[in-house]
């Protein structure tokens, strides 16, 4: 029994230890003891080597209370000086003793540290061995399919050593375990799972035997990650695994934490979008009355920030704002009102109050009415929801507590550079096109294709179309060069591109890019924006790019330098992913690049028609 061989840890008190790990020796020199158990100093060279060898690292420096170890899983193991409790991902455990300090050295309980690294310390013939463990076996059921996730402290391979209609046994070479025993499952075509040790301390083997019920089929083991193996079983009546895989490959997106608009939008009813036609603020006997005129049927959510930030906002889902955004000061307990389209389907009416005032909501066929009182109140609700125009009032849950403080995309919090800038193009016929990257910065390169070259090609195609439609066009670069200077910083390079548009007083700024990721999964076209002025422009462009042949990833707000510092409406278009085979085929097709250029031009034309410059004919 391997457990019986476990080294009596007090033997290492104030001593050193050499242990074998994966065939090589690691020397520990800063061992101590506490409460009858071994402690390891965090600066022990052997400990440092062990962390490195297991793909883990430690976050701690003298003066810090928390000692954090990030494992290769990754799981963050949280120890704290003076506290026996330690946290391992979502669970809390008790260590044999509390970590402690000796001078500038923190000492941690050795056994618990090793467990967190999925290792166990054993002895064989007087030699200490750090043995990787089969550390966890999670059995999960989905319908009649059962999956067993095995996680180990070393690279796992599941070798089938016995197979019959009644059972199958896998051998995991190189790992031991303390999970020995039999567990009844009794579902999904699996009767029980038995885990047993075999092999030796130095060459351990863990055997996992799964008892199968009649008709259950064991799929081939899969290595999902170096240290993880997935065993899957299809019980009697199971659906085709390929169908299941296909369903899992396209899961329903979860709502983001800032569900202020997303959840409301999902619950909105009605066949078409509602329209916010105006907001009227009038003094009332006991405060202020606000009428938000809405045609159509939809839902809304409102949120209030914590004191002393006396702002609140109402998000009207599945709605379009008719006319220009509104910014106005207001009487009484209201300080200001702002109305804007915060994303393609949400209109936000944001208020600043002079204090924590009471707010009462009533809805009608004409929209939403708010009665804002004058007396300060305490303990008011910070969120709510409802419907207008006959929409079902959805049971929209209160937002996450932690989502509230910074989620509001209203005036000052969202748009650091203020609401719509009032930018006036000194050359309203000029469009500046920025082919991303270039020169010493090729951007993404994949399969022989260079982002810098592709973006320049698309930019030139777009220029040709725009000029034919009567626009003036300036490219930030005409060839494969840096705009500022070779090997410059990203800041200098991006600012130089913005400078071209800003100094020329351009009407619009379009930065063209190709996206990338570390694997081939993600694909699609994304329009990134950063300022209020960008929203309508991006909406117009995105509406045309949606048909470009890859997935439409919509408009994404982000804190991007080049769009933030372009004074005019700007959009950064990540046209497609060079790292995705389908998108790659599109990007390397001149016909597709021409199509994208055409669609961007159409979006520019649409925006110019929707937001004409006075005395300037739309192109």
């Amino acid at each position, binding site marked *: 029994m391997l457990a019986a061989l476990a080294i009596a840890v007090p033997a290492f008190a104030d001593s050193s230890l050499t242990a074998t790990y994966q065939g090589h020796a690691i020397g520990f020199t800063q061992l101590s003891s506490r409460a009858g158990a071994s402690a390891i100093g965090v600066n022990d060279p052997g400990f440092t080597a062990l962390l490195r060898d297991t793909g883990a690292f430690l976050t701690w420096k003298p003066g810090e209370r928390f000692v954090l170890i990030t494992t290769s899983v990754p799981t963050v193991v949280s120890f704290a000086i003076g506290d026996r409790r330690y946290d391992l991902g979502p669970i809390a455990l008790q260590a044999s003793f509390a970590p402690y300090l000796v001078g500038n050295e923190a000492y941690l309980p050795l056994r618990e540290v090793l467990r967190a690294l999925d290792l166990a310390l054993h002895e064989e013939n007087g030699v200490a061995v750090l043995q990787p463990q089969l550390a966890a076996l999670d059995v999960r059921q989905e319908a009649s399919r059962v999956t067993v996730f095995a*996680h180990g402290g070393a690279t796992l391979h599941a070798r089938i050593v016995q197979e019959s209609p009644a059972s199958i046994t896998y051998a995991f070479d190189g790992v031991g375990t303390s999970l020995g025993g039999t567990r009844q499952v009794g579902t999904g075509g699996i009767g029980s799972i038995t885990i047993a040790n075999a092999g030796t301390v130095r060459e351990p083997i863990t055997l996992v035997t799964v008892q199968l019920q009649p008709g259950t089929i064991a799929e081939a083991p899969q290595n999902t990650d170096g240290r993880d193996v997935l065993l899957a079983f299809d019980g009697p009546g199971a659906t085709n695994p390929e169908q299941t895989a296909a369903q899992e490959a396209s899961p329903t997106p979860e709502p983001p934490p800032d569900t202020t608009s997303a959840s409301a939008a999902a619950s909105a009813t009605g066949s078409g979008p509602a329209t916010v036609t105006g907001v009227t603020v009038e003094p009332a006997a006991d405060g202020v009355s606000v009428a938000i005129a809405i045609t159509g049927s939809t839902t809304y959510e409102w949120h209030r920030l914590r004191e002393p930030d006396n702002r609140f906002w109402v998000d009207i889902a599945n709605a379009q704002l008719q006319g220009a955004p509104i910014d106005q000061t207001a009487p009484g307990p209201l300080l200001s009102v702002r109305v804007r389209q915060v994303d393609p389907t949400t209109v936000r009416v944001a208020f600043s109050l002079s204090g924590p005032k009471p707010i009462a909501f009533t809805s009608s066929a004409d929209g939403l009415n708010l009665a804002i009182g004058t007396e300060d109140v305490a303990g008011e609700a910070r969120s709510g929801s409802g419907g207008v125009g006959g929409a079902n009032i959805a049971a929209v849950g209160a937002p996450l507590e*932690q989502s509230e*403080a*910074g989620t509001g995309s209203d005036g000052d919090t969202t748009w650091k550079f203020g609401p719509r800038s009032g930018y006036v193009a000194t050359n309203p016929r000029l469009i500046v096109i920025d082919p991303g990257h270039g020169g010493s910065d090729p951007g993404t390169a994949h399969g022989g294709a260079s982002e810098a070259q592709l973006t320049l090609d698309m930019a030139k195609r777009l220029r040709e179309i725009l000029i034919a439609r009567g626009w003036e066009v300036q490219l930030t670069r005409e060839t494969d060069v840096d705009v500022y200077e070779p090997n410059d910083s990203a800041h200098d390079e991006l600012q130089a591109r913005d400078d071209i548009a800003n100094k020329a007083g351009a009407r619009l700024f379009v930065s063209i*890019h190709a996206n990338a*990721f570390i694997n081939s999964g993600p694909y699609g076209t994304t329009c990134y924006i950063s300022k209020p002025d960008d929203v309508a422009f991006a909406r117009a462009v995105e509406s045309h790019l949606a048909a470009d042949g890859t997935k439409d990833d*919509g408009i994404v707000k982000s804190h991007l330098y080049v769009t933030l510092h372009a004074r005019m409406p700007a959009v950064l278009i990540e046209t497609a992913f060079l790292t995705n085979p389908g998108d790659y085929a599109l990007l390397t097709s001149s016909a597709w690049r021409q199509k994208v250029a055409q669609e961007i031009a159409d979006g520019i034309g649409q925006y110019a028609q929707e937001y004409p410059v006075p005395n300037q004919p739309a192109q």
Partner: protein
Amino acid sequence: MLLAIVAAGTWYYVSHRAPSAAETIPIYYTKLDGKTLAEMRVSMRPRQADESATERLHNVVLYAAVQAIAGPPNDVQAIRFPPGTRVLDASVKGSTATLDLSKDLERQAGGTFGENGEFKALVYTITGIEGIAAVQVLVEGNRLETLPGGNVELDQPLHRSDW
């Protein structure tokens, strides 16, 4: 979806107790659609008797930052920080948390898609801590305007409202 864990590693289940909701904090990561945030909750020890409010806030920020940089377990599909990225230091001044990250952060291979997803998740995680409204990111102690070859502006504190 019916998903039931019917057995698990005994190591973790012999002596642990499930923390109450008050003893967990949310860590966000960005899913592979590049936009949607998902939440995982991690256990958070209660404040200790000799832990001042100031130190407590620092400790929570440090812990959350290390968790956010680590991301969810490898079998979860998520946008991840470049391998090796570490939190070198965390500090809080007013309602702004400053995180000093290792230079590994600059090894971005995921384009705007990855960069945007990484910082969005980090900022949502840290500003989810009561009292923190913004996050200033440093790299090896230096305030950068952007990462090399990057697009996200970093020279000012980032807010949730930047996304």
